[in-house]
């Protein structure tokens, strides 16, 4: 229906998350009408990102160069390590301005049903980092999902054995600010109740 190069672009765009056939067509026609400079800037931005951004050698967060911005920052505390599933989870944690330690990105969560076993994640690297000493607390910030919980329990068990001097903590579960109590599920509400604090 379209000229071959247009079809190709539409096909590539529609593979992006959240982009259906319709949106892909709209974007392709936008780019067709845009100036050559504008289109080239987009293409170059994609290429530059793919060329320069990799994973941090220490924590597996996104990094330009061998270490990420957080691992390079001398003001961060070395004795607290926050474990997250994906690099995208670092950003919301950073936005809280509550955490001053360093990170460890696992690259997913344990899920035998999906074929994700311990050796598929950066768990061994985590355990070695903690065994290496200097880490007082490991904050497990995997998602509060079934797979995230299974991963948290696995980490806690393994560290109890391999680095008993480190404390393993888990992010508290509770009610989201602004939510209605009547919509809360029983597991969340139960945890919120147990984690209540005095006023």
């Amino acid at each position, binding site marked *: 229906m379209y000229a071959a190069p247009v079809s190709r672009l539409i096909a590539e765009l529609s593979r992006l*998350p*959240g982009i259906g056939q319709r949106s892909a067509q709209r974007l392709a026609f936008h780019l067709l009408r845009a100036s050559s400079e504008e289109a080239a800037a987009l293409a170059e931005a994609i290429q530059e990102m793919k060329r320069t951004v990799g994973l941090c050698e220490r924590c597996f967060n996104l990094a330009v160069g061998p270490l990420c911005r957080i691992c390079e920052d001398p003001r961060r505390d070395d004795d607290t390590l926050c474990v997250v599933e994906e690099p995208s989870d670092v950003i919301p944690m950073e936005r809280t301005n509550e955490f001053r330690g360093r990170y460890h990105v696992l690259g997913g969560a344990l*899920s*035998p*049903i*999906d074929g994700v076993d311990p050796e598929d994640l950066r768990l061994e690297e985590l355990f070695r980092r903690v065994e290496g000493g200097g880490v007082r607390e490991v904050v497990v910030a995997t998602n*509060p*999902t*079934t*797979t995230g*919980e*299974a991963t948290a*329990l*696995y980490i*806690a*068990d393994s560290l109890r054995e391999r680095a008993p001097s480190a404390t393993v903590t888990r992010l508290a579960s509770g009610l*989201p600010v*602004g*939510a209605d109590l009547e*919509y*809360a*599920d*029983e*597991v*969340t509400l*139960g945890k919120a109740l147990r984690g209540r604090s005095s006023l």
Partner: protein
Amino acid sequence: MPGSFKTEAVVLRSIRFGEADRVLHLYTEERGRVGAIAKGVRRVRSRFGGRLEPLFRVRLILHEGRGDLCTVSAAETVHPHARLREHREGLDRGVQAADAVLRLFDAAEPNRPAYNLLCQELALLDHSPEAATRAQALAFRMKLMLAAGFAPELAGCATCGEVEAGGLFSPAAGGVVCSACEAGAFPLERPGQEFMVAALARPLAEAPTAADPALRQADRAIVETLEHHAHVRLRRVA
């Protein structure tokens, strides 16, 4: 035929989909396996909350559109299995049970015994996390095999019917075999065989137990029988 229906279900598996959705593999009481999409469920303020996480037992209203997947329009908790989620062994065994149902029961037709068995297993693991033993997991698998129509022959030779059979198990024959029919068989000694018989006979909550070598033999007999006859590959329980 588009429309809505109500059913109870256990969430077996959940896969991230799109921006904030999840695709769910459900085992329902009314229709067996159903695939459904839960829209917006990954948002912190979703009205579903955590109810559509794997191992939740829920009462659902599902909308059937033209596609393969239903859409979840309402979810109410029957059993959250909250305690199970806090114990590593319990959670691992619970996920393993869901995995076995996922692989063995892929048809969109109800199987009440299988549904009830899964619910019982999850409730049991939730009630007593210390019940999450290998023997208990194997007993669950034996009962699941029965519900799926793949229970092994344990009384006499699966090939010739000889009652003096014992000591050998053949996945291809689908049960214990006598020495004359032993092609492709491996050892299943008396304690392992007795464990398997008792696992089928007793209620799940009173699952038998046995020594490690017997459990290993039973584990192998179960996994290889299912591989041979149901074309399903389960991980060993051990």
